[in-house]
């Protein structure tokens, strides 16, 4: 990590704020983004990922508008019974809370990273990864229930519109893949933090970059939860 690239802070501090800073940053013959390159690239990757998920959700909207067959009621499809009456959407609600909890521990990990508290940073990142793995496990349970018990397939299902299955597996599958990759990413960085790879430079920027990815996964879930499960 060439930390000298990021040390242009002195010049930035004197530059104007607000809209003037936008034109200054883009117009002058210098670096546009006053952040470490890794962070800028992660943001740009997340921007491209935003478009991918938006395309999925938009096509889901399109097929849900145009299908002639009634759309299965997600509230009932994703209900679970713990001995008594089925509770609507309960598994999805728990998954949402698990992911938000993991987002909170990630935010704390970033904070402790900047305090150079190696042990706490690594521990919080491992906790975040554990919550992420829990989420994927619950999703596997959900998929199993839908495929085996309810007979839902990407090309059709007994409950209603065939597009329900195709969009469900496509969108939640792609999101689940992101969570799984995030768990691996978190574990790798947490191990490096624990080993003390960033002790010498004291630069824990990587934790924030990993955090950006993880918060984005949570962010996508907010939209999937609203549009697919609640709508």
């Amino acid at each position, binding site marked *: 990590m060439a930390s000298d690239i990021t040390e242009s802070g002195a010049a930035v501090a004197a530059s104007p704020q607000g809209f003037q800073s936008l034109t200054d*940053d883009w117009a002058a013959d210098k670096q546009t*983004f*006053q952040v470490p390159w890794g962070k800028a690239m992660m943001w740009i990757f997340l921007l491209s990922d935003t478009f991918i998920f938006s395309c999925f959700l938009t096509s889901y909207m399109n097929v849900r*508008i145009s299908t*002639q067959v009634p759309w299965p009621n997600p509230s009932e499809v994703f209900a679970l019974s713990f001995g008594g009456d089925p509770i609507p959407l309960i598994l999805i609600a728990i998954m949402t809370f698990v992911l938000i909890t993991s987002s909170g521990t990630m935010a704390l990990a970033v904070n402790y990273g900047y305090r150079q508290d190696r042990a706490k940073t690594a521990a919080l990142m491992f906790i975040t990864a554990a919550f992420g793995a829990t989420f994927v496990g619950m999703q596997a349970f959900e998929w199993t229930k839908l495929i085996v018990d309810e007979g839902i397939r990407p090309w059709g299902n007994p409950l209603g519109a065939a597009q329900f299955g195709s969009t469900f597996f496509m969108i939640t599958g792609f999101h689940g893949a992101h969570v799984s990759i995030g768990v691996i990413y978190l574990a790798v960085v947490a191990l490096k933090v624990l080993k003390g790879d960033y002790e010498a430079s004291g630069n824990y920027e990587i934790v924030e970059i990993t955090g950006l990815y993880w918060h984005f996964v949570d962010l996508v879930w907010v939209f999937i*939860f609203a549009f697919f499960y609640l709508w």
Partner: protein
Amino acid sequence: MAAEGHQEHPLSIYLWIWVLLFVLSTLSYLVDYVGFEGYLRWSLILIFMFAKAGFIIAIFMHMAWERIALIYAILGPPVVLLVLIGLMAVEGDYVTMTRLDFFGETDFVAEPHVVEEAH
């Protein structure tokens, strides 16, 4: 303001946003649990969704403390998605009308092991 690229803020702000996200998630779950319908349901879902997304981006992802050049570069482009969404909504309506004209109402009956529609 924090030094550039060094996003260190008090712990309390994260804890408060964390609690707030839990509350907003509970509220959006309750929209379904209570069983609101129609425009009330859709507007509540969207309000809670955008509030949650906003807090995650602004605080957890530190966008509130970034410079405006980065904020515009990241949050600006997704605005064009509104065009795509608008076009696809119109197209979806058109396909619905066409299908009604040519195929009529569906004879789909929800029951196990039904053979799916040909189209």
